[in-house]
């Protein structure tokens, strides 16, 4: 097990959580924005009970790669955002 990744610290986990929520807010698309927020919160809640260091490390690595996807795609979505917003984003 020489290649085993050390498990992340609590600070690192919280920082990843915050970064994911921040990247969710960057999405111009209403549905993608809400989904990214919801999925982030639900995943972290589900993984709260993880105790095995290697599965914590695996979940953390997965979260980090999801963050990269979210950051890239938030840019792509903003480049092609329709001029007119979703009715869900228009406050009455």
């Amino acid at each position, binding site marked *: 097990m020489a290649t085993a990744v050390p498990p992340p610290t609590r600070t690192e986990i919280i920082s990843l959580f915050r970064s994911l929520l921040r990247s969710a807010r960057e999405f111009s698309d209403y549905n993608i924005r809400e989904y990214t927020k919801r999925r982030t919160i*639900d995943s972290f809640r589900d993984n709260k009970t993880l105790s095995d260091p290697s599965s914590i490390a695996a979940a953390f690595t997965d979260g980090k790669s999801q963050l990269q996807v979210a950051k890239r795609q938030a840019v792509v979505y903003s480049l092609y955002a329709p001029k007119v917003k979703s009715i869900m984003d228009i406050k009455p």
Partner: protein
Amino acid sequence: MASKVLAAAVRRSLSPRIPTSIRSLSTAAAAVAEPFDETAGISMKGVKISGRPLYLDMQATSPVDPRVLDAMLPYFVSRYGNPHSRTHLYGWESDEAVEVARAQVANLINASPKEIVFTSGATECNNISVKGVMHFYKEKKKHGVGALYMRRRPRIRVEPQMNGGGQERGIRSGTVPTPLVVGMGAACELAMKEMEYDEKRVTKLKDRMLNGIRDRLDGVVVNGSTESRYAGNLNLSFAYVEGESLLMGLKEVAVSSGSACTSASLEPSYVLRALGVDEDMAHTSIRFGIGRFTTEEEIDKAIELTVNQVEKLREMSPLYEMVKEGIDIKSIQWSQH
């Protein structure tokens, strides 16, 4: 001189757009960036709405998941090789990506990658399977790409519907579209990972929608089985309401009546008729499609708009008035014109 004027004009027409696109990248400014949109709204086919409708037509097509798009984009941008090119890196990397996707699709349905044939969609899959006369399993259609599962043993012989370069073991000739196939593979892998989560959530939203409508309206019938059913599809009939009129009034909700295949005609869906739905009820059907990206707020908004519209139409309906007075509609002898 002329080119200078032109350049200035181009700059002028571009300059107001550049700041908005940059601004929309930062969320803080995005909210105030486009006040113009709020008042203008959209006007299309004589319909005016203030914003883009909420989308509940997932059985027609569904939004691409950003994780899927992220997997596809490299094959549109820089990895554009033909997967059947054998002589260079571009071909090799595309071929590898297609084979990864084939394995991802196979994995989802517990098949061998050798049993997966990529096609252009469900229609083509059905044509190969049915016209080639064989046991078949139709896989999913998605945005111009499809995959057909063909049992390996015992072997099945099919007559190709498309002839050409002999790709996909000659069953479906034509260059395999790498980006689309990569997207399908990524979508299958994601579906496997997210299946439990998505299923739970979509079921919750479906129940919320059905209960929300039934709490406020009578004469609402679910078409098809309530048990053996994909939760993301809620096909409802609203008694004494004409489906097309209801759809017309639901401008802010993107839904279909019956089956998308028949949306060009006013005939009730043959699928509903085959399910044993009465002709009058089949005319009042609306199909709500719920997906991975649907929110509770959208469901609540759809309930509110649907209930209001149904109530409005029923108020105008002489039939509904007669039913309320206790007259049995089915016993009426309508005079012939």
